């Protein structure tokens, strides 16, 4: 090769090599830029592309009643959003979304257009859509529709126990009732996981980033069946008596478990508060709204008297012919009754104001105040419900001259229905003040009950039970309408005039109330009912509240499988049929029950092909004559014959009921009164 030509070739080669070297340097430099200088940024981009953070749902804890029936539960719901900048066609998107989500197409199009024009990258189309709508949208497989999972609280029973359970706001934070009080326990905290995805966003692997915490499941002591009846009957009573509000508490006196807690008016927690909705609808009147209890408070006065004085149920009390004057203030009996000197038990049965004041005077201010506090008045019960009122018991130092008289008949004090129920439970359970319980279990683990406090002696409680039974059983008692069918019951009515703080006067409206328990021997339920704002004598507790007690107690005892301790009262027509039969028929071992039920059919039956067996009711044994016997002998004989006996007094048996020779019906007891 010519040297000149060679030098040309060498120059060209040198240029080529230089270019290639530069190219290599450029590549190498870019590699350093990508792999070292921008390492973190590109790593982040790669992770954003290959990984996504997925939320591990942790729903809010459910609330169940004592039988496991859900009262509140959260269900995952899909929410729909779009990126307006990535929408292929606004018209098509608005058409599809408005048709499936059932929203206004023009309004949606306007929102989409506005969001796109303003450069927004996110637009929430509709939150918490029904599952069928979500499924319809998913089936379209459109990339521009984004599904976000949210949770929605549902109350499947609607208004049932709404005032107890409460409600949540749009972010599922409790804003009322147990939902608010137990918000920390109920609230779930969603976890997160990093998921490695492929190009089609399908998950390949995932790594837990934060642990999810599911909200605790809470089991309440509420029985939804009892609660339903309580709410229904309370609402009916309030409406019938043109009252304003009402409250009811049903409690197991031995454990303090709340079986039902009803308030009227109520609301549907599934719906947000409507404009103009009365605020009272969201109050839990049973624990938040105190009222003057009136005559039901005489139970406390008499219990204090039995504990602190020598007064007994049969002790005679001078009721002053219907009026008593205390330091210039004259107190009359309700409805201008004029009672003379009557036993203490009748003071309760007839609800004598004068008698209660006389008994209260015997107790004295200090001891009365002490027993008010012992029975739990003037302090919160500690039930985990928000806005619990302690009620009102004024300090002893500010009591006036007539305060003792007022307190003795249930005025100048404020109590909640829950406090009244708890006080009544003291009589029912033998003298123990129990702490009301509404939480039975947390995540299936039983919540231990608090130990009760002894308030009164057992014999005082038994005496009070017998006197309270008289209120219901005695034909002159004020609580006749609280008599149960098939069960013994005791209680006390109350009718307190409502004080108007504006005019400083008592109005013509009443708080009609009733506290009671059943059965008397071994009470299984205590119920306190108040109907606030009734008018006239029809609004008295014996008329407005006692029937509610009867209906709720009968249903609750049936639901709780409490055996009946009295024969059932047959309907009027069947009673006439029985009266028409000769007396000897009572001795027959089998009593006609009308059409006998078919219990089972035997395949080998002859004749009709099926053997019909009849049900029969056995009559009990005849009651022996206990008169003149000692208590020990009476108990021994009764025990031998298997007769339930209720003894009273001391000495020798003087009076017995039923009389000797009578047939003791199933569930009936023999009452024997002893005297020296």
């Amino acid at each position, binding site marked *: 090769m*010519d040297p000149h*030509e060679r030098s040309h070739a060498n120059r060209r080669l040198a240029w080529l090599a230089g270019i290639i070297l530069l190219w290599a340097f450029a590549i190498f430099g870019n590699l350093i830029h990508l792999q070292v200088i921008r390492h973190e940024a590109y790593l982040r981009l790669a992770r954003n592309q290959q990984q996504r953070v997925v939320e591990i*749902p942790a*729903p809010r804890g459910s609330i169940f009643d004592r039988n496991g*029936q*859900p009262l509140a*539960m*959260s*269900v*995952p719901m899909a929410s729909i959003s779009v990126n307006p900048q990535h929408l292929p066609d606004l018209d098509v998107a608005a058409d599809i979304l408005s048709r499936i989500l059932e929203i206004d197409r023009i309004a949606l199009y306007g929102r989409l257009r506005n969001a796109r024009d303003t450069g927004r990258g996110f637009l929430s189309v509709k939150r918490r859509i029904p*599952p069928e709508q979500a499924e319809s949208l998913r089936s379209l497989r459109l990339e521009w529709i984004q599904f976000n999972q949210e949770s929605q609280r*549902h109350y*499947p*029973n*609607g*208004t*049932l126990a709404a005032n107890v359970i409460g409600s949540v706001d749009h972010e599922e934070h409790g804003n009322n009732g147990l939902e608010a009080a137990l918000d920390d326990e109920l609230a779930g905290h969603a976890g997160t996981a990093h*998921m*490695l995805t492929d190009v089609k966003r*399908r*998950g*390949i*692997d*995932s790594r837990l980033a934060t642990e999810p915490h599911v909200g605790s499941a809470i089991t309440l002591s509420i029985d*939804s*069946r009892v*609660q*339903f009846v309580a709410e*229904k009957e309370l609402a009916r009573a309030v409406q019938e008596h043109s009252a304003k509000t009402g409250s009811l508490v049903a409690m197991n006196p031995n454990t303090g478990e709340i079986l039902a807690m009803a308030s009227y008016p109520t609301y549907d927690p599934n719906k947000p508060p409507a404009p103009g909705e009365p605020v009272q609808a969201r109050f839990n009147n049973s624990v938040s709204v105190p009222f003057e209890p009136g005559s039901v408070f005489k139970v406390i006065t008499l219990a204090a008297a039995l504990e602190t004085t020598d007064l007994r149920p049969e002790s005679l009390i001078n009721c002053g012919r219907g009026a008593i004057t205390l330091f210039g203030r004259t107190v009359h009996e309700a409805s201008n009754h004029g009672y003379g000197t009557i036993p203490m038990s009748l003071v309760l049965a007839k609800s004598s104001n004068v008698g209660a004041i006389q008994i209260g005077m015997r107790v004295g201010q200090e001891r009365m105040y002490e027993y008010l506090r012992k029975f739990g008045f003037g302090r919160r019960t500690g039930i985990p419900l928000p806005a619990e009122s302690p009620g009102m018991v004024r300090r002893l130092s500010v009591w006036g001259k007539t305060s003792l008289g007022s307190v003795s008949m249930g005025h100048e004090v404020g109590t909640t229905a829950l406090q009244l129920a708890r006080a009544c439970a003291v009589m029912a359970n033998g003298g123990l003040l129990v702490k009301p319980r509404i939480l039975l279990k947390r995540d299936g683990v039983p919540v231990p009950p608090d130990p009760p406090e002894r308030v009164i002696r057992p014999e005082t409680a038994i005496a009070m039970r017998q006197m309270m039974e008289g209120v219901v059983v005695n034909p002159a008692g004020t609580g006749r309408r609280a008599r149960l*069918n*098939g069960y013994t019951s005791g209680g006390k009515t109350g009718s307190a005039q409502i004080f108007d703080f504006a005019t400083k006067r008592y109005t013509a409206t009443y708080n009609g109330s009733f506290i009671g328990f059943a059965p008397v021997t071994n009470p299984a339920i205590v119920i306190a009912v108040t109907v606030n704002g009734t008018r006239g004598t029809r609004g008295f507790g014996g008329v407005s509240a006692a029937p509610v007690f009867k209906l709720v107690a009968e249903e609750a005892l049936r639901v709780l499988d409490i*055996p009946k301790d009295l024969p*059932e*009262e*047959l*309907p009027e027509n*069947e009673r006439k049929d029985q009266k028409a039969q000769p007396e000897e028929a009572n001795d027959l071992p089998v009593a006609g*029950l009308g059409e006998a*039920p078919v*219990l089972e059919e035997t395949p080998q039956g002859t004749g009709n092909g099926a053997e019909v*067996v*009849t*049900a*029969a*009711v*056995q009559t009990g044994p005849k009651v022996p004559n206990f008169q003149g016997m000692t208590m020990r002998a009476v108990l021994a004989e009764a025990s031998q014959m298997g007769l339930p006996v209720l003894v009273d007094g001391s000495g020798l048996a003087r009076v017995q009921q039923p009389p000797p020779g009578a047939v003791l019906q199933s569930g009936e007891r023999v009452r024997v009164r002893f005297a020296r």
Partner: protein
Amino acid sequence: MATLATFLRRFEAQAAPQKERRPALRVEQDPYRLRAIPNSDVYFFCKKIDNTRLVREADPRARKDCWTTIGAACAVVVLLTTILMPAVAGTMAGYRIQELRAEEQRLIDERRVLELEEARLLSPARLQQLAEGQRFVTPAPGQVIHLNPRGDGSLALNVK
């Protein structure tokens, strides 16, 4: 556009006159004649050749090399498969696990929805409404008979 061969030949054609260094003789050309298209003198034609009587000479070495190559390729494939198999299986299992997790979550959600639906259906208010629709009434006193069990459990005491 010139082909690569034409392009290279053009360099050779340029190099050849430089080698001879002849004086440039400018041939007068007919100015009205078109310039020849490159390679316009190449003609493609088919010539039939009968190879059927040809027999490939046995080449044991080539055959050995061929089999060696095939074996090596197979070995590489097996090796790669063995190395990559766990990773692929792991990825496939990952897909399956994620699918199953999503399915589990879906079923849990579905169960919650069904539980809610059941609770709605069993709500006391609805049952009351249904009962009223069916004209059910609370049993009157005396209509409910409680059967006390006999000792041996055969029949109730108050059943004949």
